[in-house]
């Protein structure tokens, strides 16, 4: 419907620059401030609102950022995790911007005649056209395919821009992980300032994925005060602090600085294999043990009641919806859902008896909208430290590895708004798009679930 707005004169409103710090916990930043490790952030926090924010359930970046960029719940934008499945074939697929069904903040701004530049936000590949520039996220297969308009690829190449740090290298050793994330951060910062200074924009959003990566690989050594890795971790955040300080110094009076994260982080106590648990309970059966990894969910046997995808999404094998489904819709469905939910809440860590899940949400408790049917039937919410995984087959219920040591948390995301006070104390990522629209003087599209914080 963009053509209806073509030629409409620009309304007055502020320019906004937003830096996404993937997975940076609010409480961690407060600690950095208290320990004098983030002088720029400390000063900026006094000149604006630095607040704690809730993520989404589940708290993965694909769901959280899709919610951020659309201002609607997953029932309306159709992104429920990093993987999803077609219930009629059990084929798994990676949801992309084509799977995402809601209009994005930058599409709304584009229609209002604003020029936008958006870089690296999860679930923006393939790049959907905007009035400006869009660079797709780490789910892009190559830089060439990630950029709208394509003619901007050479500029990004000349800046040494990269799609992502190499996560396999990062798994090899913590030294390599540090090298990888620092190099990627260099490219991100260089690109941020180039775009800020050299391009025309009303809205600029640059996403730093490397914070999340750093946390996945090094959160535990940081927390434990490792003599090598804790200082390296703080050094990384010194660079983040410096970047935000430098950016703030360049703002004019018409531009507002925002930064935010999409979820918090904590150390993994144990990974939890939900499909192993479903097998132990008799609700999941596999055709072969061990299953053929090439076949994925096709290894689920026909008389299974349920299966799970990462993280903690449990699907019932409902007749008429799922291939060879055997659970009757209606009373039987509800009965199984109740049973599985209750059992999840009773599940204990075999090592010390700690409860693993704090809640088992029925999908309609979390989501509403035309895509509710695509959501998992139950979304299991763990206590911090228990990381629910989607592996189809594992021999044990829990495991603790030493490569990926950090996991996400729900209630410790962060939002910063420069130069204004936010009265609300409880809000979530769904409220960010409406807030930005309000700041920029663009009326929100109908049907948004979030509310402006200003």
């Amino acid at each position, binding site marked *: 419907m963009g*053509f209806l707005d073509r030629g409409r004169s620009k309304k007055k409103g502020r320019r906004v620059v937003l830096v996404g710090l993937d997975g940076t916990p609010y409480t961690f930043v407060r600690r950095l401030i208290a320990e004098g490790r983030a002088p720029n952030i400390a000063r900026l926090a006094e000149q604006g609102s630095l607040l704690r924010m809730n993520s989404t359930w589940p708290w*993965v970046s694909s769901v959280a950022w899709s919610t951020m960029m659309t201002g609607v719940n997953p029932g309306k934008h159709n992104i429920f995790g990093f*993987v999803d499945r077609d219930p009629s074939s059990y084929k798994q697929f990676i949801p992309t911007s*084509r799977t995402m069904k809601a209009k994005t903040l930058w599409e709304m701004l584009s229609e209002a005649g604003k020029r936008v530049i958006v870089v690296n936000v999860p679930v923006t590949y393939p790049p959907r056209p905007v009035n400006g520039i869009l660079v797709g996220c780490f789910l892009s297969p190559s830089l060439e395919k990630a950029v709208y308009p394509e003619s901007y690829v050479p500029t990004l190449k000349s800046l040494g821009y990269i799609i992502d740090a190499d996560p396999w290298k990062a798994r090899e050793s913590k030294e390599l992980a540090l090298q990888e994330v620092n190099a990627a951060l260099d490219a991100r910062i260089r690109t941020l300032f180039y775009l800020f200074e050299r391009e025309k924009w009303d809205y600029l959003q640059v996403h730093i994925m490397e914070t999340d990566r750093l946390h996945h690989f090094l959160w535990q050594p940081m927390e434990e005060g490792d003599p090598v890795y804790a200082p390296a971790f703080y050094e990384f955040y010194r660079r983040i602090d410096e970047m935000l300080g430098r950016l703030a110094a360049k703002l004019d009076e018409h531009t507002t600085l925002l930064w935010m994260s999409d979820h918090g982080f904590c150390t993994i106590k144990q990974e939890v294999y939900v499909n192993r648990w479903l097998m132990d309970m008799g609700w999941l059966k596999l055709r072969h043990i061990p299953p053929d990894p090439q076949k994925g969910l096709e290894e689920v046997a026909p008389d299974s009641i349920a299966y799970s995808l990462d993280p903690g999404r449990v699907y019932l094998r409902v007749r008429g919806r799922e291939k060879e489904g055997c659970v009757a819709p209606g009373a039987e469905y509800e009965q199984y859902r109740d049973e599985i939910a209750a059992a999840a809440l009773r599940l204990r860590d075999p090592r010390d008896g700690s409860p693993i899940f704090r809640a088992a949400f029925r999908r309609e408790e979390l989501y509403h909208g035309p895509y509710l049917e695509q959501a998992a039937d139950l979304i299991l919410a763990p206590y911090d430290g228990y*990381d629910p*995984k989607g592996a189809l087959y594992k021999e044990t219920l829990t495991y603790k590895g030493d490569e990926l040591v950090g996991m996400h948390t729900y209630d410790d995301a962060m939002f910063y708004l420069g130069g204004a006070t936010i009265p609300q104390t409880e809000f979530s990522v769904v409220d960010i798009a409406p807030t930005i629209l309000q700041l920029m003087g663009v009326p929100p599209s109908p049907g948004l679930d979030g509310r402006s914080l200003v």
Partner: protein
Amino acid sequence: MEQKGFTVWFTGLSGSGKTALALRLEEELRRRGLKVERLDGDIVRQGLTRDLGFSKEDRDKNIERVTFVAKLLTRNGVAVLCSFISPYRDVRARSRQEIGNFVEVYCYAPLETLIERDVKGLYKKAIAGEIPNFTGISDPYEPPENPEVMIDSSQETEEESLAKIVRKLEELGYLSPTESEKAYTEEEEALIEARLAALGYL
């Protein structure tokens, strides 16, 4: 999932792209495995409504019969694609009410563009007074006030227009979102899966 029936109703002046888009949509829906039936002004007037002319009364009757057929098909799980000038707002409102699962697509292009295009040579004749009651020239067209989708064929490519309709049908729950176009080649998908696996998401 069982197919939910629905009717996509293309309305707009002659030459605005109704039939062309309906054909593209038909192709797309069949590719997705849906049962599809297309009802087109140019076709039904050779059979179902052969006896009718172009007076307001006859036009209303034409739409009334087509609506009846679309209603039967829709309630039996068929995707029905209707392309009719259907110039009167109250008549389209009645079709919407009768059919239920009704998606109105307004095909627009400026009249000057249509006259210039004149694919069927009808505008020329109408302007010369050879065709009486010709919508847009000698008969009124009442544009929809709240169509589900609006198309401007003077500004959009057929691809873009089709994508808009498909997206709306997905949004309304008539098409399964998992059928979305693939974003990766097999090789690319393997690359991205490996990346996600390294991060523990698979």
